[in-house]
């Protein structure tokens, strides 16, 4: 997206809604914005319909603020809680059938490389745990095996949130949910460890309780996906509605998880480390 494309012509300026005019004047485009500048620019066109205290909404907000070049970024999403927020961000966004996100992103990345050979276009997949770990697991793993240069970001709320609380592959063992009254029977899927052996050059695991780390890992993942290979970031975003805790405790739950089983971890291949040292300022 360029300044010329989103700026309206003078004749039509009166017809556009105030929200859109705000976005042109105060949006994240054309200036370097980072996660530290949150609160000083407009990041979204309209309200999103997430629940109060939603960790997924917070995770998406932090990811959107951390993008190194939002005007050249295409976000690919899939149905679930994550796409309610994404479809209303001020970013290029494409939705897909459930689980197809990495296959669609692979095609879009190749097409954008042919269409804009002189510009770097980032394709970022932002989906929930159902899209990556359950229904889209085969397409996600195959995009990593093929070495497609896309970054995959999982907002992991450990439950199918918008369909009423079914257990997902990323739920913890023994967790009792609305539609899993006996508790989950098998352990949480080790997608983070699978990313390491499936060809990802960079994998990171963070929680929403540490926004600086979220920003840093997302930036690294996108820079590495431009040149080196596929990258993966997993963000823990607890869900107050279905995991049954008060909405003002989201960050405390995430902090406890960080101490317990969701510790900050970062895996890099040697060539990715070399690239970051030489290119990232």
């Amino acid at each position, binding site marked *: 997206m360029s300044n010329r494309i989103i700026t309206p012509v003078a004749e039509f300026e009166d017809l556009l809604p105030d929200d859109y005019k705000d976005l042109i004047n105060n949006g994240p485009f054309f200036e370097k914005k980072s996660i530290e500048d949150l609160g000083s620019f407009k990041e979204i066109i309209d*309200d999103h319909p997430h629940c*109060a205290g*939603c960790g997924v909404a917070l995770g998406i907000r932090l990811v959107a603020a951390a993008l190194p070049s939002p005007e050249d970024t295409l976000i690919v999403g899939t149905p679930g809680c994550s796409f309610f927020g994404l479809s209303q961000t001020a970013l290029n966004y494409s939705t897909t059938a459930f689980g197809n996100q990495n296959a669609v992103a692979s095609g879009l990345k190749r097409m954008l490389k042919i269409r804009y050979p002189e510009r770097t276009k980032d394709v970022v997949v932002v989906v929930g745990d159902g899209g990556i770990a359950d229904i889209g697991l085969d397409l996600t793993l195959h995009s990593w095996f093929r070495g497609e240069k896309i970054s995959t970001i999982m907002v992991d709320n450990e439950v199918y949130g918008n369909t009423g609380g079914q257990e997902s592959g990323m739920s913890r063992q023994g967790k009792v949910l609305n539609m899993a009254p006996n508790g989950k029977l098998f352990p949480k899927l080790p997608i983070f460890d699978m990313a390491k052996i499936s060809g990802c050059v960079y994998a990171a695991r963070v929680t929403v309780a540490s926004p600086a780390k979220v920003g840093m890992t997302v930036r690294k993942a996108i820079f590495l996906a431009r040149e080196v290979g596929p990258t993966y970031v997993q963000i823990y975003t607890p869900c107050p509605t279905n995991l049954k805790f008060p909405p003002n405790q*989201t*960050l405390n739950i995430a902090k406890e998880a960080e101490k317990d089983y969701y510790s900050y971890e970062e895996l890099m291949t040697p060539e990715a480390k070399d690239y970051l040292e030489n290119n990232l300022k």
Partner: protein
Amino acid sequence: MYVKVRVDEKKCVGCKLCIFACPDPNVLTYTENKKVSADENRCKGCGLCVSSCPKGALIIS
């Protein structure tokens, strides 16, 4: 019943921790005099900003 956030400008030190904690964009904004101001029309009243504020400058009521 509607619950909304209010900022006590005397207690606010402008650390921006509440802005990083809020799931809803454009509710809490950083003003030019280095304080936080709240847009009450967009607030959903979850209370995450209140639990993250070290100075107790935010109230949900």
